[in-house]
């Protein structure tokens, strides 16, 4: 009897594996699947919860009392959003070829904004600029310093200055050359639901855009 058992094992080896090999491999495979299945809910629980996602819903902001030259700061998806009402003089300055030559990406070629604001003023209406107020260097909030000169020296053209590492942007959020920040400030999806009410977090119905596809926030 012992001999026949031995010859069976030998046959199985010749065929490429024993019943034990089969059991061990399938058993280990199931164990691996089980481990992944057990880990999945735990890892998934660390993603934004449903209330956090719901808090990312679009918000409406009334701009009727926002005067030219002013900026307000609102919160969307826990991020600071700058809304600026630019003066005609400031808009004119954005088109100055000499100023433009100092910018890293003057034509907004890097995907830092929806396609419907890829223009010289980086906005839907030229006067109203909407930006995510997070420096593309390391995440600080840049200061709104619209006046040229001042404490930043005579070369300062007016725009955003990041106090953390000195990154500079112009008044449409375009980054200057020679500063640590690599990209222009991002523009969030937005559109105007009426003349002076902007909805942040929602694209115009005709222009779908996935905000997660932008280069860097």
């Amino acid at each position: 009897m012992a001999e026949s058992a031995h010859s069976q094992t030998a046959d199985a080896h010749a065929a490429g594996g024993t019943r034990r090999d089969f059991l061990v491999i399938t058993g280990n495979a199931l164990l691996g699947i089980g481990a992944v299945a057990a880990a999945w809910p735990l890892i998934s629980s660390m993603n934004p919860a449903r209330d956090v996602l719901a808090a990312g819903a679009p918000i409406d902001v009334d701009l009727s009392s926002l005067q030219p030259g002013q900026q307000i700061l609102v919160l969307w998806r826990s991020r600071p959003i700058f809304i600026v009402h630019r003066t005609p003089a400031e808009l004119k300055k954005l088109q100055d070829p000499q100023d433009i030559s100092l910018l890293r990406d003057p034509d907004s070629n890097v995907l830092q904004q929806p396609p419907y604001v890829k223009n010289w003023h980086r906005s839907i209406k030229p006067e109203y600029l909407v930006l995510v107020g997070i420096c593309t260097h390391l995440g600080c909030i840049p200061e709104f310093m619209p006046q040229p000169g001042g404490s930043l020296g005579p070369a300062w053209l007016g725009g955003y200055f990041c106090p953390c590492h000195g990154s500079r942007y112009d008044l449409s959020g375009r980054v200057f050359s020679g500063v640590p920040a690599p990209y222009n400030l991002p523009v969030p999806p937005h559109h105007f639901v009426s003349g002076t009410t902007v909805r942040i977090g929602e694209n115009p119905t005709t222009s779908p855009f996935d905000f997660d596809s932008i280069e860097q926030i």
Partner: protein
Amino acid sequence: MAVSQNKLVQWIDHRLPVFTFLDHELNQYPTPKNLNYWWNFGSLAGVMLTIMIVTGVFLAMQYTPSVDDAFQSVERIMREVNYGWLMRYLHMNGASFFFIVTYIHIFRGLYYGSYKAPRELLWMLGVVILLLMMMTAFMGYVLPWGQMSFWGATVITNLFSAFPGIGNDIVTWLWGGFAVGNPTLNRFYALHYLLPFVIFAVVGLHLMALHQHGSNNPLGIDRKGPQDSVPFHPYYTYKDMFGLSAFLIVFAIVVFYFPNLLGNPENYIPANPMQTPPEIVPEWYLLPYYAILRAIPNKLLGVCAMFASIFVLFIVPWLDTSKVRSAYFRPIYKWVFWLLVIDAFALGAVGAHRPEGIWIVIGRVGTIYYFLHFLVLMPLIGWFERPLPLPPSIAEAVLKKRGGGALAGAAATRTKP
């Protein structure tokens, strides 16, 4: 001897002998060949501890320990967090199942005399683990900040006020205030996170003590040679995994179909320090002790009896005077053991009911019997009981029980010239 042909394994093992350690404690570790399924519950308790720590760490990422936010944060875990309901139900029911397997593990030790020499410290470390588990479970139950959390915390911490002279100072110190409040919740959260890792460390010592002399076995006799044992791996690793699979099916049925079976609906009402619920009941696993507390109509003595009911377990190795370990060979102790099991269930039932009428009587009889068992019956029976004759060895008993003797016969013929 090299543990592996793998060069990397050898390189590591030469510097950090983890592989030698595992080989020694699993592949070479001799285990009695006659362990029955009651020996599965130690490893099941280890698995439950792991499940509790893992789910607990992830729950802690979502929980807010503040009297204003705690209840809402638990409801948020249930409704908003991805799989939060699963983690919480696993953790909540996991506590119950941890106690189920631990209690079975303890009663197994009592039946087969696993606490007797040379395993006294192994047993005592187990009692330490039980104490730590009860503290951890109690503090965890406070965290959701429901009505039962709050009033349970109030009642249990007030136990310490029974101590004469310093009692009230102790209670104020425990609370960090003049009632159970935010400081209490915060310290309970900190300790509830800490104690499981202390348990983990004591489990390490428990295993170290276990591996010194190896597992006891259903016959309660020592291993006399290699014929009495098998290596732990693969024989008992696979038996443990089979038992674990069966156990997890039961656990999953409760978690997925009856998640609130063992809970108290009162705890889904936010804590209200202005109103005590009509009935304060601890979680089921603490009911017998609660029954002992209430059985004695004197505050201080009741508290002392409750603590004594656990501390008496520490001296069990010296209370039992019998030289025979397993109740299998002890015709009288065997029956007394089952009376203790019935007594534990009866005390549990008493703890779940208002102390009125018949429940007072059962509670008092049960409490008296509990202490009678350990302090009187255990020493006495050991003296006058006449145990059945012990088998000469595990191997012989096992083969005889199989009725065959065929293998033994075969072995005998083979040794003949």
